[in-house]
Every structure is written in C-alpha cells, then in structure tokens.
C-alpha cells in the first residue's frame, strides 16, 4: 500500500530531489486523493470506451496544405463538416502549411494508409515535382473526387490606361520588361499562367517582371498601392475590389466566361488560345484497403455532389466542377503534361532570377551574428549571469530530465497513442521530482484524459490514437 500513512520510508534522493513534495499532507487529504483516484479511473472508463468495429470508428484528419482563411481552407472546412455528418465521426481539418504546398502534400502522401487521413490536394501537386521541390506527385495518391476548378484572370487598376487585353499586350510588346505583375509567389500557378499567356502570344516569358508576393490578398494590396501594374489570380479572390469598381478584369483564362464577370471575355475570345486554372480535390494515400477506400469514396462523392455543397460553392464564388476518380485521374494526367512542357521551356527559370540569391540573406545575418559574438566575447560580456546556476557534470541527469521526457513522448505517441505516451511522460516526471506517488497518479489520471478530451474531442486537434482505443 503506497501512501496511506504519512511516515513513509524515505527513499534515497534520486537526481537530488530530496523529499516528497506533498508528504506533509494530512491523512484526511490522502483520503480525498484516494477517492479522486477511484473517480478518475471511473471517468477513464467512460471517456475511453466506445470502440466500434466498423470503419470509420475514429476521427478522420483532412489535411489542408494552405493556411486558415484561404480558399482551399474554406472548401476543406465545408467538406469536413458535411463529411462528418455522413460518416458519423468527426472530420478535423489540419492546416499543414508551408513550403509552397510541399509540407501538406507530403504529409498527406506519407500518412498511414488506414483511411483515416484525407488530403485536400491542389494544383501545386502537379507542379512541385516538375520544379524539383519534392518527389511527391499525383502518382503517390489515390484520387477520390474533384471539387473545384478556378480559372486564372488578369486584373488591372480601374484608373489604368488598358481597357482590353489587346491594349495590355500592345504595351508589353512595345516595352518588354517595363510592366510588373504579381498574384502569388514565383513559380506558382498564377505566375505560370502569365508566363504561358506571354509565350502563347509569341512574347518572351520575362516580358513582364514577376514580383513574388505570397497570396492574392497582399498582391491585390500591392496593385492598389501602385507597386505592380497587373495581377493574375482567380475571379473570386478579387471580387470585393471588383464589385467596388477599384479593379478592371481584362480576361479570364477559361473555356467559358465567369458567372461573376459575365461581361469579361475569355482569353480565347480575345484571340489567345490559352486556358489555365487551379483545381482542388480530395485524395487518399496509396494502399488504403479497398473496403475502407470504398466507404470514403462513396461518402466523398455524395458530399461533393450534394445541394448543400453546391450552394456553399456558389455563395463563396468558387466554380463547382465535380468528378469521380476516373475524371479526376484524367485531369491530373492532362495537367501534368501541360506543366512538364511549361517547366521544360525554362521560361520560368529565366524570370526566376532574383537580385539576391537564396543564401544572400543568411550570409549577411551570419556575418552580423559573428561580428556581434566577437564583440561580446572580446568585451567579456558573454559570461554566465551572476544569478545563473553553477552547473557541474553531476547536474547533468537533472538537466536532461525534461529533454528525455519530451523525447519519450515523441518516440512513443505515434505507436502507443497520445494518452498512454502523455501518461508515461507526466507520471515519470512527477515521480522523479518526488511528488508523492498517490498524488502523482491522481494528477496524471485526471489531467491527461481531460487534456485529451479537450484538445481531441472539443477542439478537433487530431491527437494520435493508439492501442486500447485511445
């Protein structure tokens, strides 16, 4: 029996923590702790149960490679809400952003193929591998359903001299290299759209200087501020300024006119045979067992073809283009061929020249940092602070306590699940700092499930599931 009386045999100090932190508790306090222990174990049973055999029985993760608030995020969250209703389990959106889409697509492709991870893939999946940024390509996914295709469009300020696409092309041909454009980062879909348009018209791809600005919002801001002359992005992204008369749309790179801008001709109508735009669609990693993939596929197809989704897409201004796996696969193959050609022409490379190379900024910083270090060491200012602890090698075990605990969590959480890994970490730490074992057990058993409940269930953070249904 641990901890029933207050005169416990004192253990040898481990790591220098001398006494039980709460050993002075009265026996009445102990009684309370025992009761809490019973309650928390009971709660564990309530929270932890509910393992069903049929698929899906756990929350599903929907990876969105772009940040919250963007178009892809909005579509993802709408689909997640509808999917969780039809599948009967929570569908949580995770924004795995960064790396121009590399991070999210990579995570989606290498995810455990158990059917619990979906990816909202975007057109960048077709582009990134041709640019040598990742090895992940559409071949690493099993396409489920296409949701949306948005065409590129060209915008100028309404006080600019260009009334039609032909006006703009004339200026570009007369003074190549004078005009500046943006819409997104260098090498992105909108940049490729502009480069392809210029090439199609027999102009060099660098006849317009591309200013690499991340995202259409900041690019629109830059257009208004006069920093760039034209913008290429999708029509819904610019609809606010378009409705307010601040912008003029010169052409849409689509097969047909955009419903939000019925007066604006397509590029084809304006005499330029060029069509390009982005797509979004849901995918599974390769290797998901067919009976699970079938459940997901059926639910996803039903969702993207539902009236609720169509209505959402209409009010949000996104073009609704749906299609099953076969149509989606076909689209991926076509896009991959288009981008292979564009990236092979080196047209993008030619305009990708930046005034300062990628290592320029780190080099300057490294130089300044080295200078400061020399200055500080020279003046003897980098000494230990007067109030800092004097540590010797004997203190190393105590120093390593937190790193070892966190490393334990990182190594075990994927396989054992969050609850077990966190319990191990917390209980271990509490015991090492000599908290009374009973107190430590109660704190751990109350807190870990509470944190799990809060983050995973209430807030939709996909904490790892492990064995024992946790």
């Amino acid at each position, binding site marked *: 029996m641990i901890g029933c009386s207050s005169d416990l045999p004192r253990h040898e100090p481990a790591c220098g923590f001398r006494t039980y932190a709460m050993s002075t508790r009265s026996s009445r306090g102990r009684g309370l702790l025992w009761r809490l222990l019973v309650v928390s174990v009971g709660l564990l049973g309530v929270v932890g149960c509910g393992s069903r055999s049929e698929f899906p029985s756990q929350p599903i993760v929907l990876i969105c490679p772009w940040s919250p608030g963007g178009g892809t995020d909005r579509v993802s969250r709408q689909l997640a809400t509808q999917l969780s209703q039809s599948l009967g389990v929570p569908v949580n959106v995770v924004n795995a952003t960064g790396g121009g889409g590399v991070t999210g697509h990579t995570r989606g492709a290498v995810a455990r193929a158990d059917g619990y991870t979906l990816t909202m893939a975007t057109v960048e999946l077709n582009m990134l591998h041709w640019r040598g940024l990742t090895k992940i390509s559409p071949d690493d996914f099993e396409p489920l359903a296409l949701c949306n295709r948005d065409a590129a469009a060209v915008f100028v300020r309404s006080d600019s001299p260009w009334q039609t696409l032909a006006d703009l092309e004339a200026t570009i041909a007369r003074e190549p290299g004078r005009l500046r454009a943006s819409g997104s980062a260098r090498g992105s879909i909108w940049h490729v759209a502009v480069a392809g348009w210029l090439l199609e018209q027999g102009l060099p791809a660098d006849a317009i200087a591309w200013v690499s600005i991340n995202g259409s*919002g900041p690019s629109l801001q830059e257009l208004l501020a006069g920093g760039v002359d034209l913008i290429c992005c999708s029509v819904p992204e610019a609809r606010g300024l378009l409705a307010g008369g601040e912008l003029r749309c010169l052409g849409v790179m689509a097969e047909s006119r955009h419903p939000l801008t019925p007066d604006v001709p397509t590029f084809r109508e304006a005499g330029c045979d060029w069509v390009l735009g982005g797509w979004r669609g849901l995918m599974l990693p390769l290797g998901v067992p067919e009976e699970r993939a079938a459940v997901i596929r059926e639910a996803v197809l039903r969702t993207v073809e539902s009236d609720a989704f169509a209505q959402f897409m209409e009010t949000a201004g996104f073009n609704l283009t749906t299609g099953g796996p076969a149509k989606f696969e076909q689209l991926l193959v076509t896009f991959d061929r288009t981008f292979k050609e564009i990236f092979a022409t080196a047209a993008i490379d030619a305009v990708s020249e930046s005034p300062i190379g990628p290592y320029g900024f780190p080099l300057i910083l490294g130089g300044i940092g080295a200078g400061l270090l020399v200055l500080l060491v020279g003046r003897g200012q980098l000494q230990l602070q007067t109030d800092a602890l004097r540590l010797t090698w004997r203190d190393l075990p105590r120093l390593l306590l937190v790193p070892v605990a966190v490393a334990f969590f990182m190594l075990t959480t994927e396989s054992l699940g969050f609850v077990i890994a966190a319990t191990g970490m917390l209980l271990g730490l509490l015991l090492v700092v*000599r908290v009374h074992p009973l107190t430590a057990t109660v704190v751990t058993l109350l807190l870990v499930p509470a944190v799990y409940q809060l983050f995973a269930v209430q807030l939709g953070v996909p904490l790892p599931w492990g064995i024992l249904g946790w």
Partner: protein
Amino acid sequence: MTDALMTAAAEVFGRYDIWLIVLAAAVYGVFVGAVPGLTATMAVALFVPMAAWLDPVAAIAAIVTMVACAIFAGDIPTTLLRIPGTPASAAYADDAYAFAQRGEADRPLGAALLCSVAGGVFGAVMLMLLGGQLARVAVVFSVVESFWLYLLGLTSAVLVSRGSTTKALLALVIGLLLSTVGLSAVHVDARFTFGRPELYQGISFIPAMIGLFGLSEVIRNLASGTASTDQPKPQAALLSGRLLTSLKNTLAAGLGQLRRRPRQTLRSSSIGVVIGMLPGAGADIAAWISMAVSKRLAGNYETDQPDRSSLNRISDATAANNAAVAGSWIPALVFGIPGDSVTAIVIGVLLMKNITPGPQVFVDQPEMVFSIYLVFLLANLMLLPVGLLAVQLGGVLLRVPRAVLLPVIVLFCVTGAYALNGSLFDVGVMLVMGIVGFLLERRGVPLGPVVLGIILGGPLEERFIQSLTAGGGLLGLINRPIAAGLAAVCGLLWLTLARSLAWRRGPVPDL
C-alpha cells in the same frame, strides 16, 4: 448615416441573443487564448461551420469577441507560467512573470486587462470614425513601406530589450537566422533543410515561443533541484481569500495604471490601430513599436522603480495589441483585402452571408458596417468582466505546488506545440528551443527579440527582394515618400543603437 447607425444600434444592443452570443464567444475566446498553442485563428476557423446557422451580425459578433478576448487571454499564461499566449505577449513576458514570482500577479494582469479594454474600445471608435480615411492610407503601403516597417519593428525590439543592446541584437540575429530554415517564399528554394520534408515548413514561431519561454523555465527550475521543496508564492490578491476582494484588487491595479498614464495609453492605442491596419503587420509589431515610442518620448519611462516601468511596458504593449485587432479589420472591410488569417476567414463568412466586403458594402449596407463597429465596442466591454473572472481562475494555478506544476507545464507545452499543426516535428522544435532558451538566458541574452526575429525574418527578406524587383535597385527602397520617411526614422534609431554598440570601457549602460 445617423439612420443607419440607429438601426445598427438597435440590432446590436437590442437583441438579447447577440448579448448571449457575445458572452459565450468571450468565454471561448479567453479560454482559447489562455491555452498555449491554441490560436485565435484556430478558434475562428473551428467556429465557421457554426456561423452558417447564425445571421451575419451574430456571426461577426462572435468572431470579433473571440479574437479580442483571445489576444488579452494570452497574457494570463504569460504572467503565470511565462508561456506567451500570443507573440505580442513575448514582448513583456519576463516583466509580467517577475511579478507573479514576487506574488503580485494581479498587478500586471490588472494593467493588461484594463489597457486591453481601453485599447480595444479606442480601436473600435477609430474604426467607426476614421475607418474609410485610414483605409486610403493603408493602400498606399506597398512592399517597400512594409519592408521599412518590419525593420522598424525589429529595431524596436532591440531598443526596448532590458540589458545589453549588443546581446539583444545578437538575439535578434539568432531569430532571423532561424527564420531562414525551410522553403524560402521568394526564391522558392529549400534552405538548411538537409533534404528533410518536415523542415520545408520552417520553424513555426508558436512552438518556438512555447519552448523558448515556457519549457526553458521548467528546465531551469528542475535543474536547480529545489523544485520539490519550493512552495508556491502566496499571491497578494489572486484568490487569496474572498473572490470579491481579489476582483477588486485586480481592477484597482488596472484602473490605477490607466489613470496614471492616460496620454500614453491613448498614444499606444493609436499606434496599434495604425500598425494593425497596415498589410502584413499585426499586433506583435504594434506592441513592440508602441513600447519603443513610449521609451523614446517619455524620458522617465525607465523610472527608478523597476516594477513601475515594467507595468508601463505591459500597459503600452497590451493597449497597442488590442487596438491593432480593430485596425486589421479596416482594409478587410473597406477593400475586401484580408490583412491576416482571421480577417480572411471573416471575409469568407461575410461572403457566405451574401455580403461582399469592399467599397460597395458601405453604400449598399451601411447598417451592416455600423453593426460590425458596434460589435467591436460590445466585445471589448464584455472582455472586462469575463477577463476579470478568467484572471481569478488562472490564479488557481499559482496555488499548485511547483513540483506538481512544472511537469504539468511540460504536458501543456508538448500538447500545445503539437496542436498547432498536428505534427511531432513541432514538438521537437519546441524541445530544441527550450534548451536554446535555457542556454541563452544563462548568458543574459533576451528571448523576446528571438521570437520577433523568427516571425519577421521571412517577410523581411521577402519584402526586401520584392522591393528590389519591383522598384528597380536599391534606390527603389527610398524613392517613395512614405518609404523615405520610415527609412529616416530607422536610420535615426540605428544611430542611437550604434552609439551604444561602440567600444567603451566598462559595462555598457542600459539603453
């Protein structure tokens, strides 16, 4: 206009369901803001599916309240556990935490709450009176001006740091260098990733911040070996006995601070609004710049009473960051250009309700616009009671024995870092940053500038290279009037910095 205002007022204040929604959103916002690793953006994104069931005013009211409350609530873990809830709180994390260690947590929290409310209310009023005109200013900001603004923010972080300027500068450079890890936005080139796809996303600042401040403090405490015998510092006021006394004390601490410095609070709030509305600049830069301005303008900013000057820093920063929240809505409403991820989500919600933000909405639906303004006012007023209660609840943490609290903090650091992106890589970043923070602090290198460096390093480089491509060469950096003005201010600040960096015998005086 008055008609529209009256309609809007009836709509916002006259509906009991709006009050209920604002109350619920305030509680939710405070909660999300107070848990490290959960962000206001996440809270708002989770709320969007629910927004489909609400009418536009109610949906916007909920979002505004969540964001305004979350940014204040970030100060609670900052003060009690030294885990900054928001990057803006990193500016004064050490100041606020020092109070808690002395058993006076109610003073910084009271000041932060009252100044947050004041800043938020001021921001709402400015939004109402000058939104349209300010938006015109915001849109002349091109990449060049943003570049100088970021530089100004970084310089401010060095200026307001305690202790040696050289060390603050070193901290900043470390942060900037860390920001270069990953796929650079402007070159689209993988740097320092060693071929590992996880590193492409770079070092996210939230896990870094949790590690640098929170985990490093745990490591320090555990290393000292006294954790098991340390008793929690009895707090002078927080939950010391009767709830009412404690509430009164917190309120009094905040009111006293407001009454002592009305002009400074006004100034910090104005800086917050202006910086918040500028593209790409948010509450974090606003907090640091307003601290720097107060320090330059007021000779007695660093008074002979260190705790008074700490409180002043906290007040200035919190007033500015809450005002910045209102400011960030200006370009979103007036032009439909999202200034940050929260306003991007808001634009999505408005579109869902068939309202297209942009110049046209002011003509077609002025009562809608006024409703949003009034909701801002209501949200910030609601923050006062909800925030007060939250502070008292947070005070419970301080009664937990340190031996129990420290391992629990580790659990929260780990979960918070994981929650951001659902990635174990971020937990690793948090751990490494915890060790780095521990080592840096032993040598007296401040941590605040590291955080700002990580946040602004990427955008700074991006804007610099964009300015060079867009403006054509180095001259392009100063050939626009506002850019030239900002450049001049930066230049002046650097002169001050250079003077204190110059070789001198003996210890360098604190700047």
